[in-house]
């Protein structure tokens, strides 16, 4: 299986995602420059964390117009699995591939710490190997992760079970105190209606080996391996 990790100018978690796929998971991975126009036969696309285009204008606002994004949109429209991590999630929101937008954290801090997130749904390519309600300890690092959408959009997300990860306590309780940034309904990650595009603010790629404090993030990468090997979520291209 092959991962494409898109590199925007200002991406800084691209190598972490590459390392997780290539060296921890033992799959093929390739870094793809944002001006490329081909995903080079990849089975999975990762939009990594960082500060694409310096976060100028708005987070993800410029990156969505990068040439590779047309190909990413086509790949996603064909059913292929796309994972947006942190800044990659923000790019997916700006591109309209996921609903909503990010506001500055309600606490005016850049939050950089390990948090707990509860897996809400396991029928996506990036949670297929999770147990329902499983609690993952993975890091966040963002100043603008305060998820917002109009009330009717949030209602639709909840009704369609598109909320995939929620900030929670270590025992899996979703509480205001467990919410690091003010996100509506403690939302940490969502998927699109066809469930193949997933975005989340926490960084699973930075939590794939115990040597870095947690290996809980690896299950997202194992999930896509499992989903694709069962024939689910392969892009029609």
């Amino acid at each position, binding site marked *: 299986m092959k991962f494409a990790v898109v590199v925007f100018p200002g991406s800084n978690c691209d190598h972490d995602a590459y390392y997780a796929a290539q060296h921890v998971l033992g799959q093929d991975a390739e870094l793809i420059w944002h001006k490329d126009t081909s995903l080079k036969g990849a089975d999975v696309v990762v939009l990594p964390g960082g500060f694409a285009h310096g976060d100028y204008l708005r987070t993800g*606002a410029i990156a969505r117009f990068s040439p590779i994004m047309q190909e990413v949109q086509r790949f996603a429209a064909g059913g292929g699995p796309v994972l947006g991590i942190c800044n990659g999630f923000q790019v997916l929101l700006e591109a309209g591939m996921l*609903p*909503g937008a990010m*506001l*500055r954290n*309600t606490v005016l801090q850049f939050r950089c710490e390990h948090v707990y997130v509860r897996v809400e749904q396991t029928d996506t390519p990036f949670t297929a190997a999770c147990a329902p309600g499983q609690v993952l300890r993975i890091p966040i690092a963002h100043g603008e992760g305060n998820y*917002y959408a*109009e009330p009717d959009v949030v209602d639709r997300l909840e009704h369609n079970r598109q909320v995939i990860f929620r900030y929670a306590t270590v025992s899996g309780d979703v509480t205001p105190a467990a919410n690091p940034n*003010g996100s509506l309904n403690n939302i940490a990650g969502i998927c699109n209606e066809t469930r193949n595009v997933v975005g989340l603010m926490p960084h699973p790629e930075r939590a794939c080996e115990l040597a870095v404090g947690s290996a809980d993030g690896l299950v997202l990468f194992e999930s896509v391996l499992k989903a694709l090997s069962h024939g689910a979520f392969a892009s029609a291209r």
Partner: protein
Amino acid sequence: MRARVFVTLKPSVFDPQGTTVAEALHTLGYSSVKNVRQGKYFELDIDAGSADEAKRLAGEAAGKLLANPVIESYRIEVDSQ
């Protein structure tokens, strides 16, 4: 021709930055400042035959890029000089 584009958060959207600026102003003694909303301001110098054309073009730019319609709205003014 110069178009001025004012981008502001929609009234329904909480503005953590504006709230913090308001608190700082209160610390400085400006207790009469009741509320602050922070936005963005753009000046676009445009080759256009008329003010209407400049305004139309600036509106397209704002709708596609300068503002995020999920959380922001915009207003445009055009100088005809």
